[in-house]
C-alpha cells in the first residue's frame, strides 16, 4: 500500500521511532520564533545551562506586540517593549537571526517564512504559534507548539510526537466568481465543525485546491487549526516550485530539490483514516455571525435563530454567541452595519490579498461611519504594495495604511476594538474579546472586507461592479 504525504514526511524525520509506549522523536528542520511564546523558553535554557542546538535552523521575528504606526519612536507600551527587548537579547545571546522592529524584512512569522524562501516542501516546521499550519501549503509538516516544546526544540532540534490520524479533505469543483480561498476554508469549517479535525493531520486536496495560488493555499492551511486539525498540508506542484524559485532561501541546486519534492505527494493508493469532500461550486462568500469560526453562513443567508437547533447544548451556545454579538437571530446578514474593517493577519495580508481588496476599493470611498485599516503581513509586502501603488488606492479611499504586524488580529498592541464595536475582519478568529474586550468580529475574505468598508455594512461583494480578481 502506498504512503500518504504526511507519512512520508513523518518517516523521513524520525530520529527515533515510537517504541515501548514512547512517542517518536522527530527532527525539526525549521524553528520559527516570536516574542510572545519564547521568553520563558529561553529562560528555561539559561536556567539549565543549555544552548540552542541549531541556531542555523532557527529564525526569529517580532510580530504580535509591535506597533503598526509610528514605530520610529519605539514601543510606548512598557510590557510590550520589554518582551521585544527580551527577544532581541535572547537572539543575540544564542546566535539566532532576528528581524526586529526596524528591519525591512520584519513581519508576521507565517508571512515571512514563505516570503524568504525558508519554507520548503518536505520540511518539518514548528513555531510557538497555532497558525504554523500555514506552512503546510508547501507540502511541509508544520504545526504549532507551546512554550515547553519551544524550549525542547531550542535545546534538541527535535520533538517527541504521537502519531495523529490522517484526514483528506477534497475540495472539488470550480470556485464561483467572488469565492476566495478564505471562503473555501470557512465553508469547510462550517461543514466539519470547529472540533471536526481534532486529532488529525489534514491533507487538503481536490481541483479547487490545485487551482489556488500559493497565497490562497496558505490561507486554507492557515485556518486548519480553526477546524481543530493538528496540521494542514497541500501536495507541492509546479505552482509551489514557481513560488519558491528565486527567493533568497531557495536551494542552490534548485532542479535537484524539485526532483526530491516531486516524490512527496501522497501515492495514488495511499489510504487515509478518514475522507471528507466539500463542493466548491456550491459555495458563496462566507461570513461568520458568531463567536467561533464554525458559526458561519453565506452572505446571502440570515443569522440563525437559536430555536433552529435541536441539541440543547448547541442552542445554548448559539444563544450565548448571538447575545455577545448583539444579534437577534433571523436578521439578513447583509443588513448588519459595521464600524471597523481590518485587512490584515497571517490569513489574509499577503500581496494578492491586498490586490484583491484594492480592486474593490479603487475609485470608491470608505463609508463615513467606518474606520478601515490595512496592515500588511510583512514590511516586504508593504514595500511591494507601495511599488504597485496600492497604498495610494487604499489611502485615497480613506483606509489607514500601516506597518506590518499582527495588529488587530489579536489586539495585543494598540489596535483594539472598543466594547460593542463591530468589525469585518480578514483574520482567523472571532472569539469573544479577540479583537478587544466586547468587540464583535465577522470573519470575511479580503474582497468582502473591502466591500463592507465601502458599503458600511456586510454586503455581497458579487453585487459590486468590479473586477473580482481571485485571492
Amino acid at each position, binding site marked *: 500500500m502506498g504512503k500518504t504525504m504526511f507519512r512520508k514526511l513523518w518517516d523521513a524525520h524520525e530520529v527515533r521511532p515510537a517504541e515501548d509506549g514512547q512517542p517518536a522523536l522527530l527532527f525539526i528542520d525549521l524553528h520559527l520564533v516570536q516574542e510572545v511564546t519564547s521568553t520563558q523558553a529561553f529562560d528555561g535554557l539559561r536556567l539549565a545551562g543549555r544552548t540552542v542546538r541549531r541556531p542555523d535552523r532557527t529564525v526569529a521575528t517580532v510580530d504580535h506586540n509591535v506597533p503598526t504606526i509610528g514605530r520610529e519612536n519605539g514601543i510606548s507600551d512598557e510590557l510590550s517593549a520589554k518582551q521585544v527587548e527580551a527577544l532581541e537579547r535572547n537572539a543575540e545571546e544564542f546566535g539566532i*537571526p532576528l528581524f526586529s522592529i526596524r528591519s525591512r524584512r520584519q513581519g508576521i512569522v507565517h508571512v515571512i517564512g514563505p516570503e524568504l524562501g525558508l519554507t520548503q516542501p518536505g520540511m518539518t516546521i514548528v513555531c510557538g504559534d497555532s497558525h504554523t499550519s500555514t506552512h503546510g501549503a508547501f507540502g511541509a509538516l508544520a504545526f504549532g507548539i507551546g*512554550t515547553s516544546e519551544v524550549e525542547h526544540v531550542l535545546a534538541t532540534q527535535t520533538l517527541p510526537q504521537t502519531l495523529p490520524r490522517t484526514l483528506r479533505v477534497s475540495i472539488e469543483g470550480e470556485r464561483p466568481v467572488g469565492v476566495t480561498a478564505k471562503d473555501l476554508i470557512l465553508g469547510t469549517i462550517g461543514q466539519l465543525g470547529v472540533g471536526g479535525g481534532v486529532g488529525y493531520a489534514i491533507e487538503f486536496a481536490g481541483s479547487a485546491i490545485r487551482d489556488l495560488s500559493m497565497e490562497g493555499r496558505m490561507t486554507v492551511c492557515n485556518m486548519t487549526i480553526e477546524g481543530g486539525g493538528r496540521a494542514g498540508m497541500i501536495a507541492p506542484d509546479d505552482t509551489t516550485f514557481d513560488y519558491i524559485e528565486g527567493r533568497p532561501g531557495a536551494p542552490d541546486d534548485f532542479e535537484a530539490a524539485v526532483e526530491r519534492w516531486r516524490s512527496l505527494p501522497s501515492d495514488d493508493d495511499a489510504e487515509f483514516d478518514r475522507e471528507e469532500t466539500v463542493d466548491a461550486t456550491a459555495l458563496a462568500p462566507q461570513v461568520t455571525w458568531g463567536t467561533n469560526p464554525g458559526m458561519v453562513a453565506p452572505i446571502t443567508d440570515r443569522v440563525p435563530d437559536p430555536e433552529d437547533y435541536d441539541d440543547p447544548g448547541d442552542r445554548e451556545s448559539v444563544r450565548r454567541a448571538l447575545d455577545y454579538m448583539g444579534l437577534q437571530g433571523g436578521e439578513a446578514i447583509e443588513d448588519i452595519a459595521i464600524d471597523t474593517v481590518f485587512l490584515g493577519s497571517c490569513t489574509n495580508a499577503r500581496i494578492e490579498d491586498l490586490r484583491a481588496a484594492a480592486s474593490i476599493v479603487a475609485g470608491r470611498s470608505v463609508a463615513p461611519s467606518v474606520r478601515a485599516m490595512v496592515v500588511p503581513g510583512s514590511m516586504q509586502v508593504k514595500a511591494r504594495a507601495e511599488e504597485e501603488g496600492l497604498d495610494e488606492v487604499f489611502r485615497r479611499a480613506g483606509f489607514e495604511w500601516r506597518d506590518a504586524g499582527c495588529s488587530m488580529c489579536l489586539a495585543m498592541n494598540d489596535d483594539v476594538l472598543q466594547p460593542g464595536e463591530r468589525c469585518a475582519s480578514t483574520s482567523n478568529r472571532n472569539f469573544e474579546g479577540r479583537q478587544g474586550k466586547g468587540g464583535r468580529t465577522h470573519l470575511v475574505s479580503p474582497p468582502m472586507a473591502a466591500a463592507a468598508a465601502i458599503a458600511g455594512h456586510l454586503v455581497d461583494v458579487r453585487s459590486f461592479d468590479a473586477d473580482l480578481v481571485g485571492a
Partner: protein
Amino acid sequence: MEPFTVHTSRLAPLDRHDVDTDQIIPKQFLKRIERTGFGEFLFWDWREEDDYHLHHPRFRDAEVLVTGRNFGCGSSREHAPWSLQDHGYRAIVAVSFADIFRNNCTKIGLLPVELPESEVRALIDFAHEDHMAQVHIDLPEQVVHMPDGRRVGFDIDPGVKQRLVNGWDDVSLTLNDEALIERYENEREIAGAGTAWLHDR
C-alpha cells in the same frame, strides 16, 4: 515537573463547549515574561458575568475542572495551562480537548482526562447539587472514582502517562538520545540553506 499519580478533589463545573484559549487567558496577560502568577487572570473577561461561578467560595478550592467539548481550542499559548495550574487545578476532565492545549497541559503536569459526555454531565450535576462531592483520579490505574462510587476508566497515551506519573522533564529525556540526534544530523538531515545566511543581510 510535579508527578501526577492519584488525586482526590472537589469539582469545579464549567458547563460550556469550545472554551477557547482567549477566554482562558486574554492576550493582555501574555505580555508578562514570567512563567508564574497567571492564576489571577484566569477566565478574566467572564468574571463580571452573572452566570460566572468558578470563583464562588463553593468552587474556589476545587482542584479538578469539569467541562465540555473541545476545551482549549484556539491558540498555542501555554499561558492557558499555566493559568489553570497556577489557579490550583491539577486535572481537567472534559468531553474532548484541542490538540495543542492537551499537549501543553501534559508538559507541565496538568492532567487532561477525557470522559464520555454522559459521565461529564453526571460530574457537572454532582458538583452543582453538592459542592463537597469529590472525585478520586487514579492515573496509574487510568480510573476516575465518581462521587457515587462508580469507577470510570479513561484512555491516555502510554508515553504521556509515564512522563506524568514520573514527573519527567522531556528535554533531559531526549538528551539521553543525543547520539541518535547526531546520527540523524550527520546521515539524514536534508541539506538546505538553513537560516545562518540571514545574519549577513
